[in-house]
């Protein structure tokens, strides 16, 4: 940091003020003349007068914000293009609150005093600085509002983003400068939508330039918050075209308010370069207010489209349903007709079959009976005659057998009788005597045993046809028959 020290030399003779300022001027020229310095500072009290840009360059203590140095500075006509270039590159209006790296020379003027003349402005420093500030703000948002802001997968999620948009957006709270061109674009676009949608809009007017940290804008949000039931969404728009202060949209209080806001916030800030912190926290953000308006119309249009689609689908389905019912009816109707014909035809067929069965089977029953009868008759004819024949045979057998047997029997009897004739012929005494046997009689009786015969007994011997009378002279035992039979 560069601090300009001024050394005042005291003399004995009072000098005219111009003498003194002349001396200061000479001294400063000696020390700083032809020298250029790069200085980092913050711009404040920026103003322009007759082609010259005036400002205070200040330095604050980072923590406390206590002012540590301040000096006037200006940019002359020939340095204007530097501002233009700066604003073009950074997308940020050159003005109060921005931090800049500038090339300055120290100038002393007898009337206007000590001033720095800015020759060049380094836009890349400011860009870096802005980015740094943004990062700090975002980190703070996450740290201090863990319930409303989260950083996940390389993007920020806020509570406001989780709010569900109503099917139709019609009540809009607008936070904008009353005189902003962006507001006019927005209102114009909405009111002239081609679908005839009507919107009710209420403007919550705020400064969008030189609003310190967007404090006034936050107040508008608080106002809306108290009437939150009256609005579908909040639209934050800023005039398009002219370079304006974007710093307020990176400021913490406004970003926090948006992130936590209970009504969806649409941003249309018309910025060119970086997306602001406010954009990141909002429900949705568009490059321009006109685009926001278009998006709202689109949203409503898509609802209407959905309604129209439902209408068409209802009509189509209803008609389809009716025609299906008609079709089904006619199928049923023809089913009934054909079923009837089938039943009738089948019934007739079955009847016919039964009828011919009855006639066929009754005939066959009768013819079977005929067959049975004639079989019985046949048996009747054959069997008895065979039987009689057999009986006749049997009788015939008797008529032959009985006489034959009788005669055989008689013959046998004859044989037996003849046997006896032979027997008795052999046994007759005459026959025995004729073979040399003799009968011995004692005292007129035939004896067969010699035990009672004694010497001197008189015996009659009958031999053949002759009788011999003898007297026993001796009696002795016989030697037996020589021819023992």
């Amino acid at each position, binding site marked *: 940091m560069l601090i300009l020290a001024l050394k005042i030399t005291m003399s004995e003779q009072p000098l005219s003020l111009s003498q003194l300022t002349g001396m200061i001027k000479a001294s400063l020229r000696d020390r700083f003349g032809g020298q250029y310095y790069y200085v980092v500072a913050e711009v404040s009290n920026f103003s322009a007068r007759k082609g010259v840009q005036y400002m205070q360059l200040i330095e604050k203590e980072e923590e406390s914000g206590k002012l540590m140095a301040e000096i006037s500075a200006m940019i002359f006509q020939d340095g204007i293009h530097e501002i233009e270039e700066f604003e073009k590159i950074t997308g940020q209006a050159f003005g109060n609150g921005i931090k800049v790296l500038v090339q300055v020379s120290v100038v002393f003027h007898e009337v206007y005093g000590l001033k720095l003349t800015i020759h060049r402005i380094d836009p890349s420093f400011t860009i870096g600085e802005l980015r740094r500030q943004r990062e700090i703000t975002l980190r703070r948002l996450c740290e201090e509002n863990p319930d409303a802001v989260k950083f996940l997968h390389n993007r920020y999620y806020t509570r406001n983003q989780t709010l569900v948009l109503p099917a139709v957006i019609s009540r809009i709270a607008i936070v904008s400068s009353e005189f902003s061109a962006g507001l006019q674009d927005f209102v114009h676009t909405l009111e002239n939508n081609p679908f005839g949608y009507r919107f009710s809009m209420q403007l919550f007017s705020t400064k969008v330039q030189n609003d310190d940290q967007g404090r006034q804008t936050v107040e508008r949000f608080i106002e809306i918050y108290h009437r939150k039931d009256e609005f579908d969404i909040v639209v934050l728009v800023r005039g398009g075209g002219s370079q304006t202060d974007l710093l307020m949209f990176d400021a913490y209080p406004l970003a926090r308010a948006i992130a936590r806001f209970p009504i969806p916030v649409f941003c249309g800030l018309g910025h060119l370069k970086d997306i602001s912190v406010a954009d990141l926290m909002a429900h949705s953000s568009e490059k321009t207010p006109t685009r926001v308006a278009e998006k709202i119309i689109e949203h409503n249009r898509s609802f209407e489209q959905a309604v129209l689609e439902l209408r068409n689908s209802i009509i189509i389905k209803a008609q389809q349903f009716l025609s299906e019912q008609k079709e089904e009816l006619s199928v049923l109707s023809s089913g009934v007709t054909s079923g009837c014909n089938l039943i009738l035809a089948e019934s007739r067929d079955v009847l016919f079959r039964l009828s011919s069965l009855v006639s066929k089977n009754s005939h066959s029953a009768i013819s079977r*009976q005929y067959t049975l009868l004639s079989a019985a008759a046949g048996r009747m004819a054959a069997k008895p005659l065979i039987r009689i024949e057999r009986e006749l045979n049997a009788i015939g057998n008797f008529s032959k057998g009985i006489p034959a047997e009788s005669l055989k029997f008689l013959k046998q009897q004859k044989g037996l009788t003849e046997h006896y004739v032979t027997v008795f012929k052999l046994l007759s005494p005459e026959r025995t005597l004729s073979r040399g046997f003799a009968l011995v009689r004692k005292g007129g009786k035939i004896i067969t045993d010699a035990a009672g015969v004694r010497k001197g007994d008189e015996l009659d011997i009958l031999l053949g046809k002759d009788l011999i009378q003898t007297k026993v002279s001796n009696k002795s035992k016989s030697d037996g028959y020589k021819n023992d039979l």
Partner: protein
Amino acid sequence: MATKMTYESAFAELKEISEEIENESVSVDVLAAKVKRASELIEFCKTRLRSAEKEINQIIKGMDSKQPSDNEG
């Protein structure tokens, strides 16, 4: 011939006689008489069959004569 005789009873008797004769359980004394009875029964059955047949033919003829009118009507 018995007026109360049915075809069934006649046929049953006939069958009985036929079996008796076949089994030779009929005495020669009554054989001729049995055969005579059988012939009477056969005659009776045939007469019955003939009349039933005639009657049935009549009925069937009646049905047939109506049938064509169904197909045309």
